[in-house]
């Protein structure tokens, strides 16, 4: 079975072969020489081609957050099957005339800068979000009409929470 691992900018493809309950991982048709030993607390000692790494893994939703050598990667792992299912689902969904603006960061809504029903020019402010004492202005991505704010001033929002709905003009 093919397994795909996607970081933010790259994709890596592996092949998992099974035999008697054991798995053998291949990359580019070569067996992968890797020992992966759990140390507890999401820590693993990986020795690959005799090179040694300490890895910290933390899973959030379907993303593996992986720390290695001080670097940090968000990795999504998919096998062939899940990928096919996903493709079908995506094909079924249609493009909406409306667009939602989501919170790019978790934070506090300190000020709403537009009215529902108002037309806003691209790059003009819609809302101010404060996180850890810094203010961030959420701007209109294109000329649009504000349909509905889903949050109010003083609300605390999580990352990717829908802030408001707009419609392109």
């Amino acid at each position: 079975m093919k397994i795909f691992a996607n970081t933010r900018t790259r994709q890596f493809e592996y092949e998992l072969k099974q035999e008697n309950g054991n798995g053998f991982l291949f990359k580019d048709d070569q067996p992968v020489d890797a020992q992966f030993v759990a140390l507890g607390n999401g820590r693993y000692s990986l020795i690959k081609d005799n090179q040694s790494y300490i890895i910290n893994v933390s899973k959030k939703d379907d993303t593996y957050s992986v720390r290695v050598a001080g670097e940090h990667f968000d990795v999504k792992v998919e096998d062939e099957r899940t990928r096919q299912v996903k493709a079908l689902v995506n094909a079924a969904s249609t493009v909406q005339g409306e667009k939602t603006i989501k919170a790019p960061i978790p934070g506090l809504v300190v000020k709403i800068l537009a009215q529902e029903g108002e037309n806003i020019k691209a790059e003009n402010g819609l809302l101010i979000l404060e996180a850890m004492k810094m203010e961030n202005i959420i701007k209109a991505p294109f000329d649009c009409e504000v349909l509905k704010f889903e949050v109010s001033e003083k609300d605390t929002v999580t990352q990717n929470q829908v802030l408001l709905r707009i419609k392109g003009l």
Partner: protein
Amino acid sequence: MFTKILIANRGEIALRIIRTCNEMGIKSVAVYSDVDRKSPFVYSAFEAYPLGGKTSQESYLNWQKIIDIAKKCGAEAIHPGYGFMSENADFAEAVEKAGLVFIGPKADSIRIMGNKTAARKLMIKNNVPTVPGTEDAITDHAAAQKIAREIGYPVLVKAAAGGGGKGMRLVKEDKDFVQSVESAAREAKAAFNDEAVYIEKFVEEPRHIEFQILADAFGNVVHLGERECSVQRRHQKVIEEAPSSLLDNKLRTRMGEAAVNAAKACKYQNAGTIEFLVDKNKNFYFLEMNTRLQVEHPVTELVTGIDLVEEQLYIASGSALRIKDSFNSFNGHAFECRLYAEDAENNWVPSPGIIEYLNAAKGPGVREDSGVTKGSEISLYYDPMISKLCVWAADRHHALNRMLRALREYEISGIKTSIPFLIKVFEHKDFRAGNFTTKFIEEHQSELLGEDKALAEIASLAAILAQIEEQKKIKVISGNSHNNTISSNWKTTHRIRQLRT
């Protein structure tokens, strides 16, 4: 010396002060918001009292309650740390009125240096060079814009009562001016309850170099040399070092004298910092005075051997300075990295959450001042700085390599931190060569971000193996590892970057 002091602060700096108290046999008193009940500074203090509330306003800015607790618990003095009320003259005055000692300068010194325009006038009068700009704080935004046009863009908008980058904006074009001023004023109002701002000329190829000073009640002032804090993002310091790679002894002597004069001009007492900008021609300008202990004080401690908190306590308790001479030479070289809970690769978004695992860098020359531990929750209520990772080594070259080692060694999971970004700064040839300005991050942003391909491959393999392990159905057998033999394919190119120093 005091027998008990209250610390009106939180996080790493509260713990930093507690540590010196413990070493001196002084009882430390922590005060904490509801959010901080489980924080290291609370359980490390000798005594701890709840302030209630979650926001700074409800807790760490609640003067009267803090002073009440200090009096009732028998504390003789209050240490304000940095931020919060550390540069609030009214608070310093209220503390003294309550019969307690404020561990810091007198209210008048805070007041004059905290008011940027008054400070500026005082400096000009005392022959300390300053940057061109407005003399007075401005609340009328239209008038402010007029002045900005006169000075000429780019200009900086700064909160008159501010510090630490809060309420500060760089305005490059006239069209952005009004929105920037309004936003800065709002931040300033929220943070310092004072919306006045002032405007100044933006210095070319500036480097941020500041001098640590100590002053006692008897008029003695010494400086402990400089710290360079040019590596900044959105006017927030990211990396600090001592000594600066720019200064020679001649410039150090001149700037040190100016720093001592600045402190004398405002009749300063206790530890303080004179911030300068140095331009491309090595002209230096007084920027502001921070009338408190700085975040980055550890680098000075590492190259001078002085415990600055201990000196603060001696000065506040009425002792004359124990350090008689200013420092013009240093023992080795030190760096500090501020570790923020943020994701540089995702537009620097804050990364709140629970720290699932934490194993800090250790070994030779590493000092960590952390405010968190495994299990700590990073909330959105306060500053995202979770720790300060410092290194010392015999010279700058060794210190650069030691910091790289420490950053790579530092294990943290559950939240994202600025570590990957910091690694790229310490790898960058210009930073390593000492060839950088306060615009370093802005100018090199693209080189300081992005995924390393070889490590991305390792991370991807690890994620796959972790998922298989999680499902517990299959045991993955290594292509080679059970033979106890040496792998035949030597892929040493893989990790060149991890060893580059």
